[in-house]
Every structure is written in structure tokens, then in C-alpha cells.
């Protein structure tokens, strides 16, 4: 509808405050980048020609078209010299998808439409394309309308997510975190899934949390002094670090000798190391796998910045506006009834999912 392939029956669509129904549809479409499912590359044209479709329609000079094409192919990570003269049938699904993105970017449109752009590739390639595209978007900063059936993709890619319900009804519109934390309706809650709490974890990174300070000491330090400091701290372990402040291992407060000095032999295996860029989901997963309650946050050179604990992650996930009496959500007869209803509705849910996303 935004590029007027379908005309709205009512209402208005504004781009930069301008009602698009007053624009010439041909000119409008040339101003909007368009990526469709299965890429829609023209099989009879070389990759270079495919990327240059819109610039050619706009009447750019051949030289300028070619320069732009090469620039775009490079941007999406395809070597122009290798790919320019190939045909789409000679490319893998992921490569074709990138060409599709390059083609949509050709005339540097301020607005892009992407209709399930990564729907036709396998999950591994999809994940890579998503990450690449997010990186690309950091440079491009386009307004993108991205349609997907995959709620995880929506949450990963979107700054704002609109959940559509059957009948083309807008069920909820907001940032991904809000959709996961406070689904507006039962439909949205079911749609984002019972694991929405876990999904939220992947939206935040360790660096978003306030790190807990760790009690640290070097081998050779006075043991009694270190023991006193550890006992004074709520966390029961002392973190042994080397001279450069890189972690060596933990010492349980009960294992710290009452006299003498600390030695490396005291240290027990370390917690997982995470960086500020690690998502909370990955951090939590690493802690669960290592059967520990804290991860050590290190900087790029491996120096200890602080700790991230299971408790601090849980605290970060707690919706800020939730009062003390909010326990009904997870327990009690109400919750049990709701769970029963949810299990019964599971078949309907599958149905609802496809319809909703198609709408």
C-alpha cells in the first residue's frame, strides 16, 4: 500500500508529511526501495543490471549507474568484479538476497519496504544476513518498513514493532521491549510466545546493566585482609586477579587462609567471561551452562570490569512499573486457569499466527 501497488480504501499514508495518494505512483515507487520475498531478481539480467534497474529508470548516465552499482555491491559484501557479470541463477540464496538489498538501495531512497526479505533462506544464512543488515542500517539510517512472519526477527530487527491481528487490525505498536514486557492483549502475549521473558534478554546487553563490583585480590596479597573484605561483601567469593587485573579464579570465603598470603593454588575454576556487548540471554546461558551465579565482565584487554549475576539480570527484566502485588501473573488459581485455557487454545494460536501475519 505504501508504494501504491494496492490503493487504500480509506485513511491516508504520509511520507515526510506528504500524502502519497497525491504523488505520481511511478515516481513514488522509484523513491522507495523495495525488497520482496524470494528477492524477485530478474533472471535474464546480470547482477549489475539488476542492481541498476532503478537508476536506469531514473535516467542516470551509464557511468554513474555503473559506479553506483559497484559501490552497492561492495556495501553488501559482494566483490563487484566477481559478481557484476554473473546471472542470479549462479548465486546462492544468501548472495541473491544481498543483491536484492543492493538493488533496493540503488537510488538511495529515504524509505525502504522489505517484504519478508530473509524468508527464503535457511536459518543460519538468515541470521547472518540479519546481522549484516543491522550493521548496514547503522551506516544507512533509512526508514524501513519490514514485514515478517517471524516474531523473533521482528524483535531483533525493529525499533518499533506493529503486531497485526487477523482482519488487519493493529494489536499493538511499540518498541520490542515493551511488546515483550507488556503485551497489550492476550493475542499479542500468545503471539510473542511463552518465552517472551527470554526473548527480552536478547534485547539488552551486559553493558546496559549496572555491574556489581567484585572483591579482588592478587596472589601474594595478605590473606587475612582479603578475607575480611570478602566477608564484608554480600557475594561470598573473592576474585583472584593477576597484576594486569585479569581474572585467575575464585576463592570461596571459607577457603581463604586466616594467615599468610594468597596463592594461585587456592583458586577454583572461573565463571564465564563476558563482555559489555554480550546479550543478557547469552550471559545467562553461559552461567547456566557453567552452573555458576555470576559472570565476570572483562574489557577488550581481558581486565575485570565487574560482575554480572543471575540476580542482576532478573532485576533488569522486572518491569519498572510492577507493584508488589503482581504475583498473580505467575502463580495462583488465576494463572492455572489461564494456562489451561492457553493449552486448549494452542491449535487456534497456530491458526491465528498465520492469519495475523498475513493481514
Amino acid at each position, binding site marked *: 500500500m505504501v*508504494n501504491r*501497488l494496492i490503493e487504500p480504501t480509506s485513511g491516508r499514508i504520509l511520507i515526510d508529511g506528504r500524502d502519497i495518494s497525491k504523488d505520481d505512483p*511511478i*515516481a*513514488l*515507487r*522509484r523513491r*522507495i526501495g*523495495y525488497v*520482496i*520475498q*524470494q528477492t*524477485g*531478481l*530478474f*533472471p*535474464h*539480467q*546480470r547482477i549489475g543490471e539488476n542492481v541498476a*534497474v*532503478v537508476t536506469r*529508470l531514473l535516467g542516470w548516465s551509464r557511468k554513474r549507474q555503473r559506479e553506483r552499482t559497484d559501490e552497492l555491491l561492495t556495501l553488501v559484501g559482494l566483490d563487484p568484479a566477481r559478481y557484476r*557479470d554473473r*546471472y*542470479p*541463477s*549462479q548465486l546462492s540464496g544468501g548472495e541473491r538476497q544481498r543483491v536484492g538489498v543492493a*538493488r533496493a538501495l540503488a537510488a538511495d531512497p529515504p524509505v525502504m*519496504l522489505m517484504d519478508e526479505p530473509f524468508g527464503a533462506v535457511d536459518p543460519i544464512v538468515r541470521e547472518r544476513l540479519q546481522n549484516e543488515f543491522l550493521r548496514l542500517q547503522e551506516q544507512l539510517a533509512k526508514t524501513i518498513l519490514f514485514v515478517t512472519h517471524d516474531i523473533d526477527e521482528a524483535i531483533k530487527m525493529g525499533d518499533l514493532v506493529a503486531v497485526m491481528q487477523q482482519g488487519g487490525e493493529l494489536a499493538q505498536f511499540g518498541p520490542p521491549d515493551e511488546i515483550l514486557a507488556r503485551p497489550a492483549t492476550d493475542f499479542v502475549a500468545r503471539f510473542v510466545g511463552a518465552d517472551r521473558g527470554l526473548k527480552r534478554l536478547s534485547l539488552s546487553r551486559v553493558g546496559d546493566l549496572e555491574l556489581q563490583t567484585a572483591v579482588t585480590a592478587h596472589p601474594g596479597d595478605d590473606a587475612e585482609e582479603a578475607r575480611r573484605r570478602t566477608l564484608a561483601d554480600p557475594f561470598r567469593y573473592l576474585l583472584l586477579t593477576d597484576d594486569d587485573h585479569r581474572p585467575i579464579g575464585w576463592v570461596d570465603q571459607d577457603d581463604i587462609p586466616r594467615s599468610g598470603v594468597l596463592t594461585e593454588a587456592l583458586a577454583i575454576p572461573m565463571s564465564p567471561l563476558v563482555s559489555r556487548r554480550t546479550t543478557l540471554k547469552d550471559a545467562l546461558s553461559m552461567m547456566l551452562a557453567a552452573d555458576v551465579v555470576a559472570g565476570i565482565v572483562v574489557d577488550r584487554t581481558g581486565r575485570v570490569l565487574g560482575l554480572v549475576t543471575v540476580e542482576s539480570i532478573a532485576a533488569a527484566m522486572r518491569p519498572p512499573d510492577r507493584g508488589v502485588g503482581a504475583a498473580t501473573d505467575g502463580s495462583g488459581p488465576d494463572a492455572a486457569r489461564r494456562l489451561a485455557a492457553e493449552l486448549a487454545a494452542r491449535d487456534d494460536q497456530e491458526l491465528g499466527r498465520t492469519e495475523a501475519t498475513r493481514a
Partner: protein
Amino acid sequence: MEAFIGVFAWFADPANWQGPNGIPTRLLEHVVMSGVAIGIALLVAFPVGLYIGHTGRGAFLAVSLANIGRAVPSYAVLVIVFPLSIAVNRETGLFDIAFVGTLLAMILLAIPPIVTNTFAGMRGVDPDLVEAGRGMGMRGGQILSRIELPVALPVILAGMRTAAVQVVATATLGAVIGGGGLGRYIVQGIARFDYQRLVAGALMVALLAIATELFFSWLQRRAVSPGLSGRSVRAYENVAQLGRVDVPAV
């Protein structure tokens, strides 16, 4: 073997290469007649096929008519249009009866494969491609010329190829109602019990049909984008490695 040598001798006889009944004249007549027929059939059938394929309107009617046309034997068509060509000749006094008759028959035979294949080729174009083109701001004519036609081209050309080969074969029958072309040798051969002439004529018609077939497969290789068929893509790669790059006629 003797018969074979006899036919060879017939070809070797200089008398058969001269005059209005000589091989060059008859061959030319045959080729011109076929060419004109294919040309006219194209002018009629191609736009119709494009229209039906692009809009989807009238598909059932056109395809049914085309299929009926295909089921009728060439000879029957010739007989049916013969009275018509006599009428044309009487009214205008312009054309040779046999020429017009044969031409009409050939045109009628050439139209169905061109219409159906053009239509089928256009129909076979992935709707996603058309939508992509529209979404990028192509006009109707640009979608037709830059997407639908080039993608449908292999199927369209296959239809033309069928039509052309059929026309070349049918032109032979023109001689039965008094027309020219290579068919004359066959008719004369039967009438005069001249076996060598008969076989020589048949041989030349067969060779011409094969040449037509070859011409169209050459055309197909030239005109169809290598991107549309895996085999030619590999061939293209080899060419590209040698540093020569063909630009498809798109």
C-alpha cells in the same frame, strides 16, 4: 544404390539448375512464400499472444481456436482456403490463385503455435518479477519489454520455430494446387513417373526444414539471455574467462 546414384545425377544435371523450373528459382519461391507467410502470421499472432498473456483476457477462446487450428491437417486447410483464394483473385485480379491459397493455408497453420506459445510464455513469467518491476516504478510498457518479453522469449521462440518448420513443410503442398516452390518437383515427379525428380524434391524440402530448425535454434541461443538456462550460463562462463563478453539482445 542405383536409385541413389540416379538422384545424384539429377542434381548434377546443369539443366536442373536453370530457368523458371531450376533449383534456385524453386528454392527462392519456397523460401519467399514461407517467409511471407511466417511474417504475416507473426504480425497477427504475436500481438494477440502478447495481449492475452499480458492481460489474461480471452485466453480460453484463443487457445481453443488455436488447438482446433492445430488439429486440422495442412492439406485440409489448403483445400478449404482454395475457393477463398479463387474469390480473392476474381475480385482483385491481383494475385496468383495458387500463391494466395497456399499463403492463406500457411498463415492459418502458423498462427496457433505462435499464439499459444507467446501466451504460455507470458503466463509462465513469475508474478514476483512483475511485482518487483512494478514496485520499483516500471511502467506497463517497461515491464513488458524489460521483464515479461525477455523472460518469456525461450517459449515464444519455440512457438515460432514450430510454426516456421510447419510452414516450410506446408509450402510444398502449394504445388498441388498449381503453386511454385520445391513441391513442384514432387508433383512433376509423380506426374511424369520421374522417380529421381520426386526424391530430389523431397530431399530438398527436408533439408530446408532442417535448415529452418537450425536457424531458429541458433536464433534462440543468440537472443535468449544465458541467465535463463543453466547450460548456456556455463558456456557463457567459459567465454567470459576468455575475456569476450556477449551482451544478450535484451
